[in-house]
């Protein structure tokens, strides 16, 4: 009833190719962003920010990165965790060795470092495709984490082998390290996500995005119309890894505070992020964010739900039950909607346009 596009005429190509051509959509998104800045940090308590919302924002950023590579450019990667680790360790080295460096600049340079590593591990994509490539990216995952674990230089030879975020300020407010408030860290991660999402959306609706999708859908035809597979794929790897690298730096500096390489493990990070983009929707920026929300919230729900209805289980049993339910839900979700939450969202909008009539 309230969601109608009747009477909204597009009088220029510019209006026609807007991200949200319908005014109600624009209002909705504006409300979400304003709410995220003005309401959430005051409504949510410390636990929610630290345990749920901040990791969600950071992982959503990484998910957008992976979606650019896998969803748009069609190159499946299982090495997300490694690229995030590159960002985190680069940021650690920079902030500890150059104390005066602005920490946001450090985050961005970390992304560039990750992009460079991404290009190196993207090179095989020229010769190998599909699952062969996916398995090959596992080489990056295992090799990079092994390297960061073995070579003391990366963690400044400290005996514990962990990297710890030093306290750094932005506009006079501490945003990293143990003194930083959850709110400050929330604003930093939120801003990175918002900017990252907008930039990603701009990329995919322009020339670069179209050449990625062309390579994804039919690489030979793309090459014949003049798209260079080498540059296009490597650019996808670079930009995707940039996002992952920044997310990795935030992961340690803004969320965990300190960590070892295990924090970027295949099962802890790479697979969950892949789940996020599959469940959210391949080839959808909005979907990456929705998928990240889903995957971050589900374990929390599974842990808290049984006690809520009065069932108390042994921790061991609870953990395994969670595994079973999580796995089962993944399969069920893929069966119900293989195109992800983004598609469900689209269907919902279609329905809403016609509501209360069926047609």
């Amino acid at each position, binding site marked *: 009833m309230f969601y109608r596009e009747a009477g909204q005429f597009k009088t220029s*190509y510019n209006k026609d190719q807007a991200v949200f051509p319908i005014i109600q959509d624009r209002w909705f998104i504006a409300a979400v962003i304003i709410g995220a800045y003005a309401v959430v940090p005051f409504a949510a308590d410390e636990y929610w920010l630290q345990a749920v919302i901040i990791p969600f924002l950071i992982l959503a950023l990484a998910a957008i990165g992976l979606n650019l590579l896998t969803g748009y450019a069609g190159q499946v990667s299982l090495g997300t965790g490694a690229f995030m680790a590159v960002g985190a360790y680069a940021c650690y080295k920079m902030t500890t060795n150059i104390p005066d460096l602005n920490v946001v600049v450090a985050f961005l340079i970390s992304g560039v470092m990750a992009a460079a590593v991404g290009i190196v591990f993207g090179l095989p994509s020229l010769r190998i495709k599909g699952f062969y490539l996916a398995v090959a990216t596992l080489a990056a995952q295992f090799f990079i984490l092994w390297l960061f674990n073995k070579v003391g230089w990366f963690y400044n030879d400290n005996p514990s082998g962990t990297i710890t975020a030093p306290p750094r300020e932005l506009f006079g407010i501490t945003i990293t390290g143990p003194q930083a408030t959850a709110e400050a860290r929330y604003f930093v991660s939120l801003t990175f996500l918002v900017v990252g999402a907008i930039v990603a959306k701009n990329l995919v609706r322009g*020339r670069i995005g*179209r050449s990625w*999708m062309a390579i*994804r859908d*039919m690489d030979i035809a793309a090459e*014949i*119309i*003049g798209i260079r597979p080498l540059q296009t794929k490597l650019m996808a790897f670079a930009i995707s890894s940039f996002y992952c690298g920044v997310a990795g730096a935030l992961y340690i500096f803004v969320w965990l505070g300190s960590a070892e390489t295990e924090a970027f493990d295949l099962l802890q990070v790479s697979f969950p992020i892949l789940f996020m983009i599959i469940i959210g929707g391949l080839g959808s920026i909005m979907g990456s964010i929705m998928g990240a929300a889903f995957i971050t919230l589900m374990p929390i729900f599974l842990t808290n739900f049984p006690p809520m209805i009065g069932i108390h289980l042994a921790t061991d049993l609870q953990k395994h039950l969670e595994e079973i339910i999580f796995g089962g839900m993944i399969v069920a979700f893929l069966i119900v909607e293989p195109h992800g939450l983004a598609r469900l969202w689209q269907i919902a909008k279609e329905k809403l346009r016609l509501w209360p009539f069926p047609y």
Partner: protein
Amino acid sequence: MPATRNIGDVLLDVDGISISFGGVKALSDVSFDVREHEILAIIGPNGAGKSSMLNCINGFYHPQEGTITFKGKPRHQMQTHEAALQGIARTFQNIALFKGMSTLDNIMTGRNLKMKKNLFWQMLYFGPALKEELEHRAVVEEIIDFLEIEAIRKTPVGKLPYGLQKRVELGRALAAEPDLLLLDEPMAGMNIEEKQDMCRFILDVNDEFGTTIVLIEHDMSVVMDISDRVVVLDYGKKLAYGTPDEVRANQDVIDAYLGVAHE
């Protein structure tokens, strides 16, 4: 008809091309040339090497022998994407559209080479990048208009029927504003109305934009009607080469198509 149209100089010269795949000779010693503004048809039975010929022309296959000269420059071993840079566009026998993208986006990819704005502006989608995008959008809309596919602009091409997909593919090739357009069976599997439409588009493209066209087609009546000259291939060899009338009268062609009467 050829007299009224100004056929120009040789645009593409194919000289003594041979290619084989693991012992199977797909083409042996084929030579012909294509002049500016003309429509040249390549015909022949299945497996005669027609598609291989197109693949050689646009650099997807590398012939083992012979030279291809395009716009006066002999071609060396080149990458597939370079052909597009030189002004060759094509369509495919089994449609090769980007199935996950809309009609509009598919045709926009055809203009990729002409879009130059760098990553920075692309990220902002503002200023020069936006201006460029809109300019190209306007050109693409003209093509959409020309091919009469306005209604399916935003439809993912994977959902379109076969005939429309062929049309979108033609649109994508046209978007590159090629000097030489290669059409691989543009009318295969179409009904008579769709064929008529497609013929009209091909002739219009040739007429209005002066695009040189090389096409492969099985429908003899179409070939004889719209092409200026015809190359007949059989088992990778050139059987005949000339105007439709000459080819129709050629004894080898009649033998190949109708079978030889053994007396």
